[in-house]
């Protein structure tokens, strides 16, 4: 914002100052020129669709009949609030988030603490934990369908060898979501681990040395040095993990199609089906507005409770 020139001040400026101003104006023009493509893209692909979604939420709009669009006021919202499937999807999304966020961040933190030590092969471990993150979720989801196969799946073969009865996993409504949670944590924890690792390496060695001289043990160091120093990183990681978790789509889309008995139907999947498969773009828009408000609310609450310290 500092780059923006203030015409009022430029008028009153003395000569050398004025030439400085014109130099600054040139600079700010260059700045705008650089920002321009990004701003255009943001407007076209973020702001416009966002505003469109709000507007379309008040209409009946069949994707295949754009001419027949009609304004129906709050009808979509009233319908959504009576849609059992919407509540089921909302519940599933929240269930996933509430479990995944603490578990995934906890696992990531433990992994980060482990690979931050001067272990032998620590780079190998870092790569091993991070590699699922860079693999496409679609590929991973398909792989895990095989792992979870109730008959010949690798996991069931393992359970069988250990004398534990085989599990239906994705085939059972009480296990499907938990199975998705397990693989999601495995897939994404490496990402949070990397951020934690960066945070850990920013903590000064001196503090550990000083505390060691004072007689602090490893656990006390963790409690009184590592965690407080990481506070901002933890807040950041919790926020992004929550937002990612709420958007859960790919795993249920590929692995279960929302089943069995809607036990893995999430809000994102609900919106996708309504909008693109059933072509009810108006209804889907209204649902996505509600979805947006929920995410916004969660983020605000988290900010309030986490940042105010």
């Amino acid at each position, binding site marked *: 914002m500092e780059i923006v020139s203030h015409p009022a001040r430029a008028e009153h400026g003395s000569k050398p100052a004025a030439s400085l101003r014109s130099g600054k104006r040139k600079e700010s023009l260059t700045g705008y020129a650089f920002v321009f493509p990004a701003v255009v893209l943001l407007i076209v692909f973020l702001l416009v669709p966002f505003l469109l979604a709000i507007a379309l939420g008040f209409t009946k709009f069949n*994707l295949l009949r754009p001419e027949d669009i009609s304004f129906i006021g709050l009808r979509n919202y009233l319908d959504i609030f009576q849609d059992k499937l919407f509540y089921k999807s909302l519940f599933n999304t929240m269930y996933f988030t509430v479990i995944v966020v603490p578990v995934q961040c906890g696992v990531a933190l433990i992994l980060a603490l482990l690979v931050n030590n001067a272990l032998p092969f620590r780079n190998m471990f870092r790569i091993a934990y991070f590699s699922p993150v860079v693999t496409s979720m679609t590929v991973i989801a398909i792989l895990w369908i095989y792992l979870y196969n109730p008959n010949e799946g690798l996991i069931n073969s393992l359970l069988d060898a250990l004398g534990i009865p085989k599990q239906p996993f994705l085939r*059972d409504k009480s296990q499907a979501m938990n199975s998705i949670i397990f693989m999601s944590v495995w897939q994404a924890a490496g990402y949070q681990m990397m951020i934690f690792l960066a945070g850990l390496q920013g903590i000064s060695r001196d503090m550990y040395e000083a505390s060691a001289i004072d007689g602090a043990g490893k656990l006390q160091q963790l409690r009184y040095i590592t965690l407080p120093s990481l506070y901002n990183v933890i807040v950041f990681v919790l926020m992004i993990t929550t937002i990612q978790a709420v958007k859960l789509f790919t795993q249920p889309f590929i692995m279960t199609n929302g*089943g069995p008995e809607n036990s893995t139907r999430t809000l994102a999947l609900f919106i996708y089906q309504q909008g693109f*498969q*059933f072509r*009810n773009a108006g209804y889907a828009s209204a649902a996505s507005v509600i979805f947006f408000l929920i995410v916004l609310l969660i983020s605000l609450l988290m900010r309030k409770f986490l940042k105010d310290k």
Partner: protein
Amino acid sequence: MKKLKMIIPVAIGVSLVAGCSGEAGKTDAGGNADASAKGAVQLTYWRPQASGPEDDFYKNRVEAFNKAYEGKINVKMEAVTRGNSFAYEDKVNAAVASHTLPDVIALDGPNVANYASSKILVPLDSYFTKDDMNDFVPSIIQQGTYEGKFYAVGMQESSVVLFYNKKMMKEHGIEPPTSMDKAWTWDEWYDVMKKTAKDGVFGTNMINDKGEWMTYAFEQMWISGGTDIVSKDGKTASGYVNGPKGIEAAQFLQKLSKEKLFNIDPKPTEFEEGKAATKLGGPWNIPGFKDYPNLEWGITYFPKKAGGTLTAPSGSWAIGISADSKYPKEAAEFVKWMTNTESSVGIAKAVSMPASRKSAYEKMPEYNELPLKIIKEQVTTVSHARPVTPAYPLLTQKFAEALTDIMMGGDVKKSLDNVADAYDSEYKKNYAK
């Protein structure tokens, strides 16, 4: 491994096409850049991407058309990628919104009503003679007709039959039926499965894609029982999909899965490897059987309900004229060309699917003998198209979800009630007049 080797070049090809899609569309087969200069009417034609003989068929037929109509009509064909099963439909949806549909458009059979009710398609009745209409097998007319008008012609047909392992049948002294009046009932099929399912061999094998297959294959069990999953006029599903006869059909499927007579997470080649005694599949499976020389296979009819009617699934990709076309007459010429007897024979051979015209079978003598005779009989006499309703996208999704749940042990009545409720409220909200 074979598949993996295929995927890499295909993926590269796809990304190349995507990178220069503007050009790729124009340079595809049949593109004759200077045709418009000669005063010919330019038509565009979209179809889903294919490979091998199917792709060759399209290229050759379009080329032949352009030659035959040189100076009059010239067709540019664009093969649209089907990255996942909805990529093609997504492109159509986008083109609808921007009025950039091609003149001639390929569409999946069960989508005809949805497209027709959205006024994307032009009726074809005035372009086809009575003889033509009588030559198409009945399910093609049924699939392409919405509210009394004919909108799209199936390029080929399809069918689901029951394959069986001859050696296993002999071992158990089972003689599969070879004439329609002796076709197996569900109970007889169940007995066959019961007898043959042991020692890691399943009674039957079938695709279990949790998607379109469920509606395609199993709606027929409702029809066989004398009902359907929606009413004839398409206005309601209550009392149909969840009516007593429907519940009976779903309970039969649940019984098969509960007694583990088929593998709910099947390997696609169970039957070929001798791990399943029968297989509910289609003509598209036959070319693959060659890779298993030890397999002796036969074909029998899609099982019917005891006392019910014999029926079989049908439907495949169709072709129609878009409402955006400025040249419907010329487009009709092309649609007629792509669905005439010669094309019908050509595509049927290219994709190993039954032909959509009765006259095509005269040129394919292999369909006069067993085992293919069974497919021809089903296609030309008893097959039924999927429900012709504008709310089909929701219907098929919900029905597939319900059947998947039922096979996994879900409550039959509750699952089917959900389909009926979802369909009825969708129809009322968006399609009732």
